[in-house]
């Protein structure tokens, strides 16, 4: 049995230079997924609202966005942004890109993860909007608010509180999906774990550590969001967790 022959060496997790690499990898995972998440929320809220508006072409655009991004594997989208998207730009812009953006793979990762997560956020947001009683709209309109004002002051703040639990899940999905950016060369934590193995043959320790990183960050996020959820809970609504 190989088990006996394997010498665990956990020091690869902190020994120079691997310790620094792992910390850098964890930080890259964090800021990449946060940037992508910001993009996803901005874009997702917009697309989510488009999907519930009255105008048919606008609704069609919204649902086309969601269907295209949800029915193509994220990995394909990632490759598209990394390999194909620069080729669609004019030659001069391409040159500028290769000369001035050394970490293009990082930005391709942010763009791919952000636009993909936006389609999921849009769906969650739409179901949040649809869960709002029609009377809220009627009441807002009857006080003389415009469509924009109605959404800005009544519907969106209301919907935000309903969608906190699904948004927490979506953020964690975004955070986990960031691991796929390793396929285009981004040095996030999964890639770092794999990379250290090629020097040390101790990939089991590093991937185990990476797993613990994902699990503990997920635990922290879930805990923080449940505190937030209790704080801004809408009074009079049935408790969502039975």
């Amino acid at each position: 049995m190989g088990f006996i022959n394997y010498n665990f060496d956990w020091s690869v997790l902190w020994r120079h230079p691997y310790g620094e690499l792992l910390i850098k990898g964890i930080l890259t995972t964090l800021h990449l997924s946060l940037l992508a998440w910001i993009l996803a929320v901005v874009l997702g809220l917009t697309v989510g609202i488009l999907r519930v508006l009255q105008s048919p072409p606008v609704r069609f655009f919204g649902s086309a966005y969601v269907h295209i991004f949800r029915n193509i594997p994220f990995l394909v989208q990632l490759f598209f942004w990394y390999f194909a998207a620069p080729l669609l730009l004019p030659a001069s812009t391409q040159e500028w890109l290769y000369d001035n953006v050394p970490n293009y793979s990082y930005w391709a990762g942010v763009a791919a993860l952000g636009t993909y997560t936006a389609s999921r956020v849009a769906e969650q947001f739409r179901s949040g909007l649809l869960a709002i009683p029609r009377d809220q709209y009627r009441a807002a309109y009857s006080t003389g608010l415009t469509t924009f004002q109605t959404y800005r002051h009544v519907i969106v703040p209301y919907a935000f509180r309903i969608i906190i639990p699904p948004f927490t899940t979506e953020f964690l999905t975004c955070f986990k999906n960031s691991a796929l950016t390793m396929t285009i060369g981004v040095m996030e934590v999964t890639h770092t774990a794999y990379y250290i193995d090629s020097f040390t043959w101790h990939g089991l320790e590093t991937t185990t550590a990476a797993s613990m990183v994902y699990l503990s960050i997920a635990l922290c996020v879930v805990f923080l969001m449940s505190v937030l959820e209790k704080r801004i809970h809408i009074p009079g609504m049935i408790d969502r967790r039975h």
Partner: protein
Amino acid sequence: MDLGVIARNFPFMAGGLLLTFELALITIAGGFLVGVVLALCRLSSRSWLYYPATVYVHFFRGLPLILVIFWLYFLSPVVTGSSLKAFNAAIISFVLFEAAYFAEIIRAGVQSLSRGQIMAAYSTGLTQFQSARHVILPQAVRNMVPALVTQAVIIFQDTSLAYVIGLREFLRRVNLVDAREARSVELYLFAGLVYFIICSVGSMAGSRLEKRTKRS
């Protein structure tokens, strides 16, 4: 645009699609079976069944699939002394991972029934097994079919991750063709279109089933 690149390499890429389907079907069947066992443990009142299954589900749901693949890839030689074949490694990590998601769908399906159903079944004198077989499961399965179809579509997309351990499924082959022909735009648009068509058919079947379940 040079669509000839797709025509020239079509048989090669189609062969990869076959492997993609094979991976997806085995994962769906295996993941569902393991998922049923996990869900039953999660619903059990016996703590020695409930806690391990709960830890399992949360553990795998908290990790990216790609990391599970690598982890198994590093772990298997340590445990068995020899490394796994890429195909087996992919299947094992997919099944272990997707089972956690199936388990939650099945558990939610069972829990969506009112407790009155179980009480009524018991009070007519059915045994625990008979109640599950004739009363609970038929209703629960109907409730969870849309979610199961959605999960199947997700699994179909997830098989593209077998790429990272060098399995020549559809995406890997598109990638190989691109490495030779340098036609990224055409090839990745084509790959996207193929996945889009297959997954859309699946998604549409799912939402049709959902409407039918809601009506009845």
